[in-house]
């Protein structure tokens, strides 16, 4: 092969850090879970988009009676407090108090199970007037909430896995910090519920009242 056309490019040699003494990196797992959260959030965005797309050309978006408000707010309270608990647990992991963090984790799991049970009751109470095959509103309503429930289950499984880890696996296993990763995911699942409550439950009530016909 012939030689280069130009003289060699500009060079700025990097500083010579000693690699041997550098710490083991554990942040990759967290970064990956953030990326995962990005796609999952987009999945929910698509679902919300579909909700509005299906609704926008209907006169009354099938909401003669908007969904009950009591259940979703109780559920919201449960999820938000579970987020607080697991956050406290994370702090304990940093301090090395593994017993306390394990307790926090299992308590979060309990709250999650309570959430699922209550959501089941909510479905039971809605079922009489609305099912997925009533119309497109029923389809998208149940699909979004069930997809969220599936994420709750996934989050619970993750938490349970961490709950069974031996102490030493809690904070440190390169490249992951399993406790933090599971907790991040759980925060995300809780956060989605905030949007669901806003978009699927609260706003329809305003729309009903705002409707002049």
């Amino acid at each position: 092969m012939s030689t280069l056309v130009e003289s060699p490019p500009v060079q700025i040699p990097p500083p010579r850090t000693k690699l041997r003494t550098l710490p083991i990196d554990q942040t990759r797992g967290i970064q990956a879970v953030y990326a995962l959260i990005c796609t999952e959030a987009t999945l929910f965005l698509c679902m919300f988009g579909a909700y509005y797309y299906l609704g926008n050309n209907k006169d009354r978006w099938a909401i003669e009676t908007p969904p009950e408000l009591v259940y979703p707010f109780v559920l919201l309270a449960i999820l938000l407090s579970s987020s607080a608990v697991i956050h406290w647990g994370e702090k304990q992991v940093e301090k090395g108090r593994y017993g306390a963090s394990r307790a926090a984790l299992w308590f979060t799991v309990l709250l999650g199970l309570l959430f699922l049970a209550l959501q089941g009751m909510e479905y039971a109470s809605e079922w009489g007037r609305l099912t997925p095959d009533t119309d497109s509103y029923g389809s998208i309503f149940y699909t979004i909430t069930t997809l969220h429930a599936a994420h709750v289950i996934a989050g619970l499984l993750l938490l349970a896995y961490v709950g069974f880890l031996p102490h030493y696996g809690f904070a440190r296993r390169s490249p992951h910090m399993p406790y933090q990763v599971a907790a991040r995911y759980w925060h995300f699942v809780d956060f989605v519920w905030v949007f669901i409550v806003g978009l699927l439950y609260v706003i329809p009530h305003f729309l009903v009242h705002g409707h002049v016909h």
Partner: protein
Amino acid sequence: MAETAVASQLTELWETPKTLCGWLGTVDHKELGIRYLVTAFLFLIVGGVESLLVRIQLTHSNMNFLSPEGYNQMYTMHGVTMIFWYAAPILSGFAIYLIPLMIGARDLAFPRLNAFTYWTFLFSGILLYISPFFHQAPHAGWFAYVPYTLTEYSPGVGMDYYALSLILLGISTTGAAINFVVTIFRFRAPGMAISRMPLFAYSTLTISCVIVFAMPALTAACIFLELDRHWGTHFFGIAGGGSTFLWQQLFWFFGHPWVYVIFLPATGMISLIIPAFSRRPVVGYAWIAISTILTGLVGFGVWLHHMFTVGMSDIAMSIFSAGSMTISVFTSIQVLAWLATIWKGRPVATTSMYYAVGSVVMLVIGGLSGVFTGIIPVDWQVHNTYYVVAHIHYVLVGSNVFPVFAGFYFWLPKMTGRMMSEKLGKLSFWVMFIGFNVGFFPMHIIGLMGMPRRIFTYPAGLGFDKWNMVITIGAFVLGVGILISIINLFVSLRSGKLAGPNPWNADGLEWLTDSPPPPYDFEHIPLVASRHPLWDDYDNLDDPDDDRVLDGGRLTTITTWLDAEPIGVATIPEDSLLPLVMSLTLLGFFLAYQFHALWIALALIILTFLAGCAWMWPHTEKEVL
């Protein structure tokens, strides 16, 4: 290079045993990259054979080679296979093999995830190809518009396999994308600041981000389709208050960015190949990098241009039409930069360079016909004619198949350690180039004459016969051209001349190490002092006290994401069978669902979770640091 003590220590740590378990459980990015390439290439051949069968049917008016239903299944399988199981995965294959080498790392950030995504990619393809055995392959085109795909009109299982295998492929693709993002941000060798990154890494990074945000739309669409087909929901059926356009919106919100997923990494490869053979740094590095990123971004804002004929507000159409035009500006910037590089350099006419330049030519033709279709009145005219088929093939073959061949001729010596024959290579190029143009250029003409796409035959006397004959011949010639390159590969594997580390005298880090690279990629983690590490006169491997050997385990460096200053070392996990087990159970889940064995499906999804737990489980206290 003689085997030093250091090297044998590293080999000990990194080598995969040559046993069946080793083969199934390997997490080596080079091994998996090659598997990706081979698998995706097989899909190219399968899809190619399907397209040839389609062409045989169209050679004459009123042929009976395929039944109408068989024809529909054939072109659908062709489109689906090519778009989803060939075009994107083959580029992932290059990226998986090359990215760690290019950025001076020893593996991807999540090697086991890499194994998992390979197996799920393979299994999703197998899942798709189960349906032809029931003679009920998907038959609704690669974008599967509703309501035709609902059970009333498509009662067979074909559309279910379409939806399920795409969901499975989506899992695989998203996993690979996340892997690339973290790898490219964190694993670059010390000194490889973001402004020194090879352009291929830029395009891979861009499309990985695109995948993260685009894939869910397809997943959502496929979930809705499955629910509508089997669970009585009303997303798409008008009667139940659904909307058929919902599918189109979701599909194209995913689909148009996906076009760039297929296209950008290929341009990234060209941006490395053309400078290497023009013997000078690429012109306008920053321009290319920025237009790559902008293409990815703006790609999210043009999806409605696939739907100009459905009727929508003028303002929406104008915005989306303008967006489509903007993208062609970014592509033009890249094309002009390549031409300037050739112009100002001293080009060497190798096979790889032939393919690269050939692809630019076709890209320009495809881009021009694309600008036409981006203009709304023209689109109304040519919509659903062979003009569109010509356009997509100029773009896809020009921006994917030819660059992929350029990439093969450029990097295969690195992968196999042996050179390919230039003579056969150039022959293959000319046969492919001529075959392609003979086969596809006339499609513009018959398209404008009014020949519709996706119609299994046409009456005599419309003036289509003559051109269709030419097209079919061209398609076969193209196939022969591809065959010549395959033969070339096998000849080179047997008796090619040894390549040595840097046969092309190119500039990237991947040419610093042996061909094929040792299991640990680099004996010393390289230091990078410029954008063209092998063309400057800085010694990347200078490491007097063996500080950068990192042989205390399977280790590589972690650097900051902009300046690439080393801040840590990363441990790389060992080989494991669990990723394979996990993707098998996942495949089982989809199959069980398809056969309505819901309890088995539930059991399998639990097994998938347990396999994941076993995969992640910390085994010894030693892993605590």
